[in-house]
């Protein structure tokens, strides 16, 4: 193997593949450490989305009187939006901070750095799976039976994870250099919660604004989730999902590119 000052990009993906085991081990570490030394442990993964759902349902559904979709209970509408949103938000926050959280590893051992933010996302996926059980409980409670589109849920889950990875890669490599980004993420996520149709249906957005609205990749993902969960009676909003997919692909490409260009000097700047 040759180490030179010019980066040899050709073995980037091969390296990544040969270190796949480390990816699993790091993901396993993050998952098993997440709720260590907490009293209610895994319950946090249930409690957080549940309480947010209650608050949103009361504020948007009851006080605001926003309409639901496809005649579904408002709580289900909110939860179906909250699921992908919290997957995206926690993934992004964790991935964004993952490099500085592992700076001792980065400055001591070589491995493809991409593994760290990617593994951080797995933790959020585990939380997501737990909240999925809450959703199923809610559906049982409302005696709401989903249709066949429910089986397409994994596809939209992947989209949410990919969106978080794309943004997370960019943010994490930038956070390694400038800690400013640590403050940007929580703020951006706070705004994003209202810009994305989490507490309301995207149907209430005026027709003329729909296109601009769906540039937010979360719109397509949340629409997709609602279509899968809320029986899929409403016409599937192809437009917003396709735009989201395109935006996500762009984010992923840009994220990987930025990450790779920063990867070589990561140990020096972190």
């Amino acid at each position, binding site marked *: *193997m*040759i*180490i*030179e*000052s010019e*980066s040899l990009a050709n073995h980037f993906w091969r390296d990544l593949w040969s270190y796949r*085991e*480390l990816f699993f*081990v*790091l993901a396993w*570490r993050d998952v*098993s*450490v997440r709720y*260590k*030394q907490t009293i209610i442990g895994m319950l946090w993964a249930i409690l957080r989305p549940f309480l947010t759902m209650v608050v949103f349902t009361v504020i948007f559904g009851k006080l605001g009187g926003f309409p639901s979709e496809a005649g579904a209970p408002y709580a289900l509408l909110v939860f179906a939006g909250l699921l992908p949103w919290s997957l995206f938000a926690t993934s992004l926050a964790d991935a964004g901070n993952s490099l500085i959280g592992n700076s*001792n*590893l*980065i*400055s*001591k*051992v*070589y*491995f493809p750095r991409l593994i760290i933010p990617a593994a951080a996302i797995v933790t959020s996926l585990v939380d997501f799976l737990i909240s999925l059980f809450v959703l199923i409980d809610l559906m049982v409670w409302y005696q709401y039976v989903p249709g066949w589109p429910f089986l397409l849920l994994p596809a939209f889950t992947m989209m949410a994870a990919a969106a978080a990875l794309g943004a997370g890669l960019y943010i994490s*490599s*930038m956070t390694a*250099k*400038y800690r*400013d980004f640590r403050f940007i993420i929580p703020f951006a996520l706070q705004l994003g919660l209202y810009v994305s149709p989490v507490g309301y249906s995207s149907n209430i957005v005026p027709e003329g604004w729909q296109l601009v609205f769906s540039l937010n990749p979360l719109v397509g993902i949340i629409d997709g989730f609602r279509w899968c969960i809320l029986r899929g009676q409403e016409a599937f909003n192809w437009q917003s999902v396709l735009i989201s997919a395109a935006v996500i692909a762009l984010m992923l490409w840009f994220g990987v590119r*930025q990450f790779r*260009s*920063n990867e*070589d*000097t990561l*140990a*020096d*700047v972190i």
Partner: protein
Amino acid sequence: MSEAVISVEGLGKKYLIGHQAATKSYLTLREALMRKSVGLLQQTKNILLGHPIIAGETLEEIWALRHASFSVKCGEILGIIGKNGAGKSTLLKILSRITKPSAGRVALRGRVASLLEVGTGFHPELTGRENIFLNGAILGMTRADIRKRFDEIVAFAEIERFLDTPVKRYSSGMYVRLAFAVAAHLEPDILIVDEVLAVGDAQFQKKCLGKMGEVASDKGRTVLFVSHQMGMITSLCPRAILLEGGRVVFDGNAAEGVAQYYTRDGGAPFAVDYTKLPKKIGDQLATLRQGWIEDMREKTTGEIDIRCGFKIKMQYALDRATPEHPVPNFHIYNSQGQCAFVCGGRRSSDGGIGIYEATCFVPSNLLNNDIYFIDLALTFMHAGNHVSFHERGALSVVIVDPIEETLHSEARNGYSGVFPGVVRPQINCEVRRVS
């Protein structure tokens, strides 16, 4: 066996550091604001484009490593020595691919594992068992590998009873043992070890050294070993390179390298004046002031002919009156870190405040042809062996054997090789015919 597994050619690593440019001494508020805002704009642009920003207006290039070239053969143990900031860590970081060089190239054959610091990647919340798997994976082992060696690792680390305890509850010794055990069972083709052995008790250190030697000799693996403990370098590595200011200034026999390390300026000197240091060496009872080596003509020197005696002197101050005078002591070690002897002063009842000088007279033909390091210490015997100061490796002295002159003397009898031994006294040896 003889092909080079590591070959380094013209390797360099550059860092940029910023300095504040000298500006004219007065600035109007408007100018200052303008300057700040222009700087801020520039910085924002750099941040978004992902360029590095460096505080300060002028940049300076620092070469942490420059024009370094050497090669290492398969199965060799290479010691890397040098002062702090000489570029050792940078070199290791480049070799273990943590950072990229700015110039030059390295060709490596085989898998590299680095042990840059023990316990890298240990997670305090996880148990010993879990950490073995985690650490192993970080260092590049597969799960199957780890499972195969698991028992060996546990036995080596001697932590059987605490396998299921979170490592945050471990003592630091246990922590280090576990970390080294995992790394030692890695079996990479090239193992890079940095200062790991500075911790742990002496017995475990010995075990680690043994393991490293075994790794190199039996399994034909290559070890790069960085340490500040010269004794370890000479006992473990046949060959060493010495780095200074980012350059390789010596490449060859480890013992010679160690001698160079000490004798190049800034190493253990033959005279030190501690009164000029900001830090005080000593405690409330006494402080070390000076130490130096002197030949019999009272000339301060760092080189002594093996045929001549010399004096080691230290000056210390007693800052408080004590019932009896403390015992000054000199500990003399050879380049392998073995103690040649300890010389202690005579006890006396004079325990008054003042400045004192102690002299250790080393006779001629006692020490071997080597470099010796001298610890200076002061012990109060009346206070339960209270040690006021013990300055390790404070002084060094090179004992030279001018072989052209001594070759045919009684000492060498024509033998031109190296005499083993910490000391080389002229012991009388009589020969008589018995039949």
